[in-house]
């Protein structure tokens, strides 16, 4: 009973570290040379699949280009070792850099279109490998292959095949450690947000394109390294080692181990090396087996072996240590601002000016010359019937839509036509009509995502766990705790955000927006679907946000709530502003009464 609990209490990297040490020490644990070679090839395949996981599993872009980057690394290493300098450390670096370049060159155009164009572009790249090798026959040996690669040397000393095994194992362990650091950092959460909802990602200030490109390009690095290692291990390179079959093998290992996992690729690679890749009779049926495997894995298996393991661990943990049902206790004390919770720290608001904004969707006029101003420390409400253009206006401000004419200013800066992530970085945060929370992300991670770009910490700092990263992570944690306490959701910090009830998710969206310390906060129908108690708590929270100094724009159907909260109200109907004024003025405005509230009125000409 006690053992599993102790195991769970260990830091999550303990077991992988022990396994990593075992991997490096394997030759001294009495394995045969055949097993050693299999482990070596497993490491190389694991490096390739791990790179694919970053782009496919985490950033959500299927890419098959790993094989091309691998080929680049291998051939470059082979050629340079023969004709320039035979130093493993240097050539591994060169191979990684060259693979990165290949990744960028194919990723920059491949990601422009989104969807499956990266998959096809990278697939194309793989099929071009033999053609390029042919074209550069003088250097690569063409179809015959490259022969005569010398034994590896490291800092002047020649490496035996045992030494080489240790080098490969150490490099692999190091790569997985770095990968683990990246994925468990806020960048890992950002990748998952990106995969599940590009819309949310860009509203958090994440450039979808840049982030996907980064994932794909970083994924190239282990492929290049693997290529360099392979060149030294086999000392003979031929085009058929780098073709489409390899691309599919890498994909199969990734899916088998779990595309959305850190260590899964190693397990997947091991299964592939010990199973199908070892037998020679298999060759004839390779494609058939892989094909069936991809169809089955794609339809049946959720996140491969890693997914199965996760579920098994969760089930065991639940048996040994039943977690209190947070949701059930949530009934007794529902989420909401605690009466004596911490007040919001002061926030700097900015004036938002929308001037004569027009937007048409084909023949439909969505905004016909809307002008309004929202000022810091005030709540500016936007009301109007469904389809009157309220959400369109928010989307226009956020940069989801390009406007046909008019201008939008934030403080002194013009934000017209800027992309969504730029607008978000300029200080505009928002909530959505349907709260957006990616699956499998805890409340804490989801809310902390709000701080991702306002207080950005580079990937290098995160991967190497530099002091800068540690400070930012600690500050994040404290701030998220504060904000969660403020919205009354502190107890829910470790629950999966997407599983919570609507009312709680709405409050969490506000929390996420607050963590970004916005200058302007856009709330889109934030009270819809809430019960009266929840609405009261929400109103209190919105007032606290106003008191902190932010500019709040509230799109809302609950007329009472709007009259209660707003300092200024703008009424949209049929894509135009029909009235603007204080709550008192709006409450008695004849056109508002007739068009929005549907109260019959005699019209005095």
């Amino acid at each position, binding site marked *: 009973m006690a053992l599993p609990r102790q195991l769970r209490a260990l830091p999550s990297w303990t077991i992988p570290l022990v396994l990593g040490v075992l991997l490096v020490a394997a030759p001294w644990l009495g394995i045969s040379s055949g097993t050693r070679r299999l482990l070596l090839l497993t490491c190389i395949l694991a490096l390739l699949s791990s790179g694919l996981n970053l782009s496919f599993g985490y950033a959500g872009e*299927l890419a098959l280009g790993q094989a091309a980057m691998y080929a680049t690394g291998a051939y470059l290493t082979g050629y340079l070792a023969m004709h320039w300098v035979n130093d493993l450390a240097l050539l591994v670096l060169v191979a990684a850099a060259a693979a990165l370049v290949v990744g960028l060159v194919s990723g920059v155009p491949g990601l422009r*279109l989104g969807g499956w164009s990266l998959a096809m572009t990278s697939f194309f790249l793989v*099929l071009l490998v033999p053609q390029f090798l042919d*074209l550069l026959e003088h250097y690569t040996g063409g179809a015959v292959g490259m022969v005569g690669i010398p034994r590896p040397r490291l800092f002047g000393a020649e490496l035996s095949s045992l030494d080489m095994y240790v080098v490969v194992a150490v490099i692999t362990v190091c790569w997985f450690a770095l990968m683990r650091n990246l994925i468990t950092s806020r960048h890992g959460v950002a990748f998952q947000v990106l995969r599940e909802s590009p819309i949310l990602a860009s509203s958090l200030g994440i450039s979808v394109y840049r982030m996907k490109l980064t994932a794909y390009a970083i994924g190239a690095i282990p492929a290049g390294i693997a290529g360099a290692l392979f060149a030294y291990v086999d000392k003979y390179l031929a085009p058929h080692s780098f073709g489409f079959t390899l691309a599919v093998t890498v994909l199969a290992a990734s899916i088998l181990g779990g595309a959305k996992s850190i260590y899964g690729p190693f397990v997947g690679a091991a299964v592939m090396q010990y199973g199908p890749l070892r037998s020679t009779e298999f060759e004839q049926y390779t494609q058939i087996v*892989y094909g069936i495997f*991809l*169809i089955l894995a794609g*339809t049946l298996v959720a996140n491969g072996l890693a997914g199965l393991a996760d579920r098994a661990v969760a089930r065991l943990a639940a048996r040994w240590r039943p977690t209190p049902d947070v949701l059930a206790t949530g009934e007794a004390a529902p989420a909401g601002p605690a009466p004596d919770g911490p007040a919001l720290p002061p926030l700097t608001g900015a004036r938002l000016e929308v001037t004569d904004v027009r937007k048409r969707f084909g023949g439909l006029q969505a905004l016909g010359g809307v002008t309004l101003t929202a000022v810091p420390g005030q709540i500016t409400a936007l009301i109007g019937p469904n389809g009157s253009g309220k*959400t369109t206006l928010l989307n226009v401000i956020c940069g989801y839509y390009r406007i046909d004419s008019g201008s939008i200013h934030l403080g002194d800066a013009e934000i017209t036509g800027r992309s969504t992530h730029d607008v978000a970085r300029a200080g505009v945060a928002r909530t959505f009509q349907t709260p957006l929370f990616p699956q499998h992300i805890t409340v804490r991670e989801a809310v902390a995502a709000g701080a991702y770009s306002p207080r950005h910490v580079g990937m290098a700092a995160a991967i190497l766990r530099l002091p800068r990263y540690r400070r930012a992570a600690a500050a994040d944690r404290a701030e998220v705790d504060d904000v969660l306490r403020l919205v009354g959701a502190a107890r829910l910090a470790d629950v999966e955000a997407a599983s919570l009830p609507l009312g709680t998710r709405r409050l969490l969206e506000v929390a996420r927006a607050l963590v970004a310390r916005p200058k302007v906060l856009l709330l889109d129908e934030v009270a819809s679907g809430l019960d009266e108690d929840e609405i009261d708590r929400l109103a209190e929270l919105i007032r606290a946000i106003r008191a902190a100094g932010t500019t709040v724009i509230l799109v809302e159907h609950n007329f009472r709530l709007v009259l209660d909260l707003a300092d200024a109200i703008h009424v949209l109907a049929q894509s135009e502003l029909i009235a603007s004024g204080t709550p008192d003025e709006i409450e008695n405005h004849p056109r508002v009464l007739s068009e929005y509230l549907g109260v019959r009125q005699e019209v005095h000409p």
Partner: protein
Amino acid sequence: MTPIWSGLSIGAVYALIAIGYNVVFIAYTTFNFAHAQLMMFAIFVTYWGLVVAELPVLLIFAIAAVGVGLIALLEEFVAIRPVKGAHAHLVTTLGMATLLDGTTRLIWGDQVLKVPAVGSDATFTLLGGRISVPEVVLVVSVVAIAVAMIVYSRRSLTGLALLAMAEDRDAALLRGINVKRLALGAFVFTGVLAGLTGPLVGPKTFAVSTLAAALALKGFVALAIGGFGSLPGALLGGFLVGLVESLTGRWLGSQLPTIMVFVVLLLILMLKPTGLFGTTRERMV
């Protein structure tokens, strides 16, 4: 002039592949990696029918159409229907593509098989360039098929329902369109079309188990040039890719055509990622 005729006729094949991609894209907003494999299968069936079994031509067309249509039906059931989302479909249809590649190799081996023409294979001079009868038939049929499909999609109720479905699946469903059956019909249609055109394509491409990968890529470039979902774009894109390939081979050497097509793909993605006829649809929140 000969390379131009040759480019146009191989371009017609790419256009056919791109049209197949497009129909699936319209019906499912997804990408069928295995479409080129369907075409390749039809070509091998033609080879088998003409050379091995020596069947009458009409029967070969029928066998190819029904056979490949059934494979498409099977694919829809095992690789498209059970999963949702373009990326999941990429994996499953890639699986289907690999499976079909493997099956083809198992049955027919690795060597290049010459597929005879179903009719005359005479060559003649047209505007100063040599062109063969099968090539003329191929280009004319592909243009006719594309035009017929364009007219059909704009004039017929089924075509309009398909377009409505591509625009908004749920709204189409609410309008009383049997989305599932319509989509399945469209998918099987791509298989039947591949089957029917396979015998026309065979003499041009020959039958070889690596054909599908090459066709898939060139077809994709045609699609990217023309724009996703655009049938005229697919036609034009196909001819452009064919011409680039053929003219590069003629003037710059035999190693470069594929690389040149790749460069064209990179250029179009950089300069006009939506393609010539594609439209950007604005995102909705």
